[in-house]
């Protein structure tokens, strides 16, 4: 035994130094290191970020796509053009001579089948959430033309179609692990927990992207992900934490479409008093976070959606940091018998973003400094989820949930109903006027839609004060020196390989 150990250890000692690990990064292959493992490779779940980052627009395509880069709005993808036929019907003209990676041809029947599959009650796909109570009917006009009728009429149907991934009509109605799509890549191999490999297709209808083969690996620890790119083991880490982003040559920051805020529960005193909610807003020195606990480039938020979203209102100004005014408001509320001394629970989630604990503790102290009585609780995701969504528990104490919302899809409609409508699952308010404004804006089109959303944002922020909006967050991507890639606000939810080029 002794000899083997000696041999082994000396062998290790001798062999190690010269053998600096060489990694096959030849030609047009890239390795991408992601923070979250993929559990399913199901096209109808592609709006979930861990799945979408790999397959969205790489393997599975959609009729339309939303342009986040240059703000051109909805662009054609599998549909070449579309027009509003009136009466809630939209006609989509589909691209011809497109094939799926299994060789079958793409036609109008596939569009119909894809939607029906995604909304089947035998599956629990994500797609139906975007349509809510809207009922869609699909009429195949000919092989490459399809009419889609929404009831009630849906002004942003073309945008919504950017969320419906197209699969062949033969796809079984059960979750698949080997997706078939029309995209420029097909799945080559998947070793669960280790890696996913996508390979470029030769028969893709569009322009051939530069990347021939993409290997995805998964590292929970952002420091490890950053180190992998630095060591040349990977080419791209789309999301590393700010403290690891130390190399300005490789690390780029980008607004990641996550908006953090404190969801207040307006039904429970003392938070039910508007002055108390205003005081909370004024107690927080948002600017003090930027460049300290949160990276430079973080934007104090005045709306639930990031500034690139349609209808974001540039005239709404963030609450000033004004502890004196906050104290006055509190005193006034107290004089009216509002129980302002009640303990407020600030409930954070341990893995919301790197450094969330420190940010929570700083928030707690700022609120305490103006006279609030705040207790901080850090909980695990399932626990917070239970408090976050309706039905809320009876007899709950006043709670402020430190949560985050992601909307990179270009329109506030994906956020506003469930965050602010009286019936919204995560709404902390019940205000009939807000309900009305949401319904109006959701049904509007064009200029009017923009105006309606802007009015809603101003009304919410200045009059209702439903929450404490905090920050539009930034992420950092580390881009290796072989490739060129610019992250966008959508990088969190999709990562088209066509955006990567070689130097």
């Amino acid at each position, binding site marked *: 035994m002794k000899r083997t150990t000696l041999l082994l250890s000396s062998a290790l000692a001798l062999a190690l130094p010269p053998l600096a690990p060489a990694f096959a990064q030849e030609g047009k292959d890239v390795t991408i290191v992601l923070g979250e493992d993929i559990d399913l490779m199901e096209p109808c779940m592609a709006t979930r970020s861990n799945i979408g980052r790999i397959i969205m627009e790489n393997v599975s395509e959609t009729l339309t796509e939303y342009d986040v880069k240059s703000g051109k709005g909805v662009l054609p993808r599998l549909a070449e053009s579309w027009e509003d036929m009136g009466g809630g019907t939209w006609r989509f003209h589909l691209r011809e001579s497109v094939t799926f990676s299994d060789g079958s041809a793409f036609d109008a029947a596939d569009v119909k089948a894809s939607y029906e599959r995604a909304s089947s009650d035998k599956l629990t796909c994500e797609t139906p959430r975007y349509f809510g109570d809207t009922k869609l009917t699909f009429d195949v006009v000919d092989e490459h033309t399809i009419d889609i009728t929404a009831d009630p009429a849906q002004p942003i149907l073309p945008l919504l179609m950017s969320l419906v991934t197209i699969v062949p009509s033969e796809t079984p109605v059960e979750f698949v692990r080997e997706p078939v799509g029309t995209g420029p890549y097909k799945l080559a191999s998947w070793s669960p927990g280790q890696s996913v490999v996508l390979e470029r297709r030769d028969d893709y209808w569009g322009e051939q992207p530069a990347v021939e083969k993409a290997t995805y690996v998964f590292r929970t620890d952002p420091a490890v992900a950053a180190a992998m790119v630095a060591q040349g083991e990977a080419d791209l880490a789309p999301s590393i934490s700010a403290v690891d982003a130390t190399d300005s040559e490789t690390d780029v920051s980008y607004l990641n479409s996550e908006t953090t805020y404190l969801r207040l529960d307006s039904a429970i005193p003392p938070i039910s008093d508007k002055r108390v909610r205003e005081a909370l807003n004024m107690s927080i020195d948002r600017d003090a976070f930027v460049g300290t606990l949160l990276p430079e480039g973080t934007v104090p938020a005045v709306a639930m959606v990031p500034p690139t979203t349609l209808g974001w209102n540039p005239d709404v100004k963030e609450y000033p940091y004004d502890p004196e005014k906050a104290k006055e408001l509190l005193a006034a509320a107290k004089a009216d018998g509002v129980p302002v001394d009640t303990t407020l629970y600030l409930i954070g989630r341990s893995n919301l973003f790197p450094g969330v*604990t420190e940010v929570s503790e700083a928030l707690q102290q700022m609120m305490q400094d103006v006279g609030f009585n705040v207790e901080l609780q850090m909980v695990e995701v399932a626990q917070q989820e239970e408090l976050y969504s309706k039905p809320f528990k009876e007899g709950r104490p006043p709670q402020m949930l430190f949560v985050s919302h992601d909307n990179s899809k270009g329109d506030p409609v994906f956020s506003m109903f469930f965050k602010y409508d009286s019936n919204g699952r995560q709404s902390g308010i019940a205000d009939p006027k807000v309900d009305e404004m949401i319904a109006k804006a959701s049904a509007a089109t064009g200029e009017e839609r923009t105006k309606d959303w802007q009015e809603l944002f101003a009304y919410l922020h200045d009059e209702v004060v439903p929450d404490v909006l905090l920050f539009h967050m930034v992420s950092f991507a580390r881009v290796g020196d072989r490739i060129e890639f610019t992250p966008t606000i959508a990088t969190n939810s999709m990562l088209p390989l066509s955006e990567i080029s070689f130097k």
Partner: protein
Amino acid sequence: MAVSSPLKAQHMSTLTSSGPAEPSRLRVVLGMLWRDKFATAAVIFLLIAILCAILGPALLTEAATRQNLRARNFAPFSLDQGWLMILGGDALGRPLLARIIVAARNTLMIAAGAVALSASIGAMLGLAAGYGPRWLGTVIMRLADVIMSFPSLLLAVIVLYMLSPSVGNVILVLAVTRIPVYLRTTRAEVLEIKERMFVQAAQVMGASSLRIVFRHILPMVIPTLVTIATLDFAFVMLAESALSFLGIGIQPPEITWGLMVAQGKQYLANAWWLAFWPGLAIILTTLSLNLLSNWLRIALDPAQRWRLEITPANKIGGGKANG
């Protein structure tokens, strides 16, 4: 564990009974301690840690929780921000020294609580399994198997979810997972001891089972349990730290050393002191406990005790003869 050989009865009496005839027993023990310089240093360090745990929170909580973003990640070894900042500041500019001292209470309380709880429950069950009827022994041992195989992470999540992440509940989680260690050791010792002469004699003389177990058997088992408990103390501290790392342990604003290391981990590249000092506190404490346990093992083992009782000159000779 089978390492610590069962002790002979006569030596036991010298260690556990403190008769009035031995006024200088404490001095004897201190003398034995002084022979082992490592163990002496360990005891001094542990006394300091306990002192911090007792007095720290009362004196320094204010300083340890006051945030100061300007002193964020303040580098150590500088007195510019006062002596509390000698070890540097954390991500919120709170002095690390003060935080480590304040966190000593939770850290030691969790470890001590978990060890005491698991040792006492484990010992009771072990006595019952070893001395009780055969079926009871089997049932208890199978129960121990179940606890051993129950994933501690799942237990932690269950407790976190259904109760709350308080100090008491973390003690509970850690204690449950450590019960089988004491249970198995106690049972193994009991099985061996109950075959001995004096137990048989007590049985013949008609002593009740309870009396035999608590008067005759338990005192024989305790030294072994103490040795294991010292080692386990270290283990529990590390386990608590790992739970914090996975986000299912103690939650801020409570602090423990383990949590401080877990939180400081992400700054390792540019502010190493955030994770280093509390990590050092853990290492020094566990190291001290290990050294103390080594000393205890020798002090409690009649076959080796002479090493600590003789003069240094003789010791060298003795060592040679032995090797």
